């Protein structure tokens, strides 16, 4: 019973643990900006804590390098359930421009199961707050896959799967 009540109040008080897995600190500075009075994210009840054991949300920044891979996994395991993981910045989303270099494992999804992605290099503090508001359900998603075609052919050489067809896609055709 207490667990259900706690789940209901979970979106109102998220405690955040910031984990930098080899980032250039650009995204870290933007995360710090989000906690300043100008963009104040504490009005949503979010607080920065120093220990993963106190946290609910892990903000992962940086493409996960090889030395930090087991450490990020340990920090993620130290967070008590229920937990959410945010990948901040294009390094955490997909590895950035270093996705296939010798020391990088390729983004947050290689280390921990990431729930929300905030792309940007670095993402503006407004973009991070937008990601937080999206997770809390306050706004709707604005990014959607875009498909642009010049001519449409009924060719089965590129037969697409049904899942690809049913996505929420912005579809435009060249009109002439």
């Amino acid at each position: 019973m207490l667990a259900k009540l706690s789940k209901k109040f979970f979106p109102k008080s998220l405690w955040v643990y910031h984990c930098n897995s080899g980032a250039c600190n650009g995204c870290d500075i933007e995360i710090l900006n989000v906690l300043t009075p100008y963009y104040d994210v504490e009005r949503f009840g979010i607080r920065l804590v120093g220990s993963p054991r106190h946290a609910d949300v892990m903000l992962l920044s940086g493409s996960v390098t090889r030395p930090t891979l087991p450490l990020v996994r340990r920090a993620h395991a130290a967070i008590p359930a229920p937990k959410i993981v945010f990948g901040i910045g294009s390094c955490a989303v997909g590895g950035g421009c270093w996705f296939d270099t010798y020391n990088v494992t390729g983004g947050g999804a290689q280390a921990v199961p990431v729930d929300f992605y905030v792309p940007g290099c670095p993402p503006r503090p407004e973009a991070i707050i937008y990601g937080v508001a999206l997770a809390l359900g306050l706004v709707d998603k604005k990014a959607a896959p875009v498909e642009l075609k010049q001519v449409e052919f009924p060719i089965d050489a590129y037969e697409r799967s049904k899942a690809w067809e049913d996505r929420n896609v912005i579809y435009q055709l060249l009109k002439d």
Partner: protein
Amino acid sequence: MDIVYVFVNVAVFLLFAPLFQGVTRKITAKIQSRQGPPLLQPYFDLIKLLGKERMNSARNWAFSLAPLGAFAAVLTVAAMIPLGGKANFLTQRTDVISLIYMLVLGGVCVLLGALASRNTFALIGASREMATMIMIEPILAMTLILGAVKSGGLKLSSAMAPLGSAGYGIAAVLMLAVYLLALQAFVGRQPFDIAEAEVEILEGPFIEYSGAFYGLFKYAMMMKQMFYAFLFVSVFMPLPATGFGPADILIQLLGILVVFVLIAIIGATNPRFRIDQAVKFYAGLIAAALVAAVLAVKGF
């Protein structure tokens, strides 16, 4: 009938302690020119913490029992005190010494939990908390001894409201100043929040605690803060007693609110002291408190 007041005490403390913490956070935010969390935010925090997964990361029994011990000690203190001037069932059977004992027991449970965590940061936090406790508890004892001397006995109900009848003397004024200077240390906020909740050692003694255990510790801390504010209001602010139970409690709660506003303002405008600076400060305060106690004994 007096037994009912025990439960009224406990209920008032349980219900209002997070509200005062919320007031503190809101005022801190306003001083920092930002909007701040909603006033009921600590309630949401506590409910969420109490429902999270419970990880006994140190795998020993002391780790699980320490938060329960701290919470129980503070609840006992809340049950014992004469809230609203009413001496309930427990107040008539306890005295000043057992009150001090219970408070120290709460602090020792925090230390026990920190030392059972098997974490170096917790050890550092525990040593700082120990130094703070050793230097601060004498001031609390001196305040209660002043109350006991002024009212002529160790009975809790009269020791905690001595100045209504005896009036203000030099000793009481000196003790008031000492208590105000030590208030931030009792409550554990800047400039003296050296032990807990500090970013230098990653939240100090509570670093390994998660979920429900941490929620209990937080709740115990909030109620302890409310108790210290209540002590100030009860000993040093002789408020008009209407004789009607709930109105008395309400007046004292308003007094506690004023004290919390003061705590928040001082907390938001001060940096944090180092442990050696803080210990020197407390030593000066202990000397002044001793002088005040001696003056009270001499009759001033």
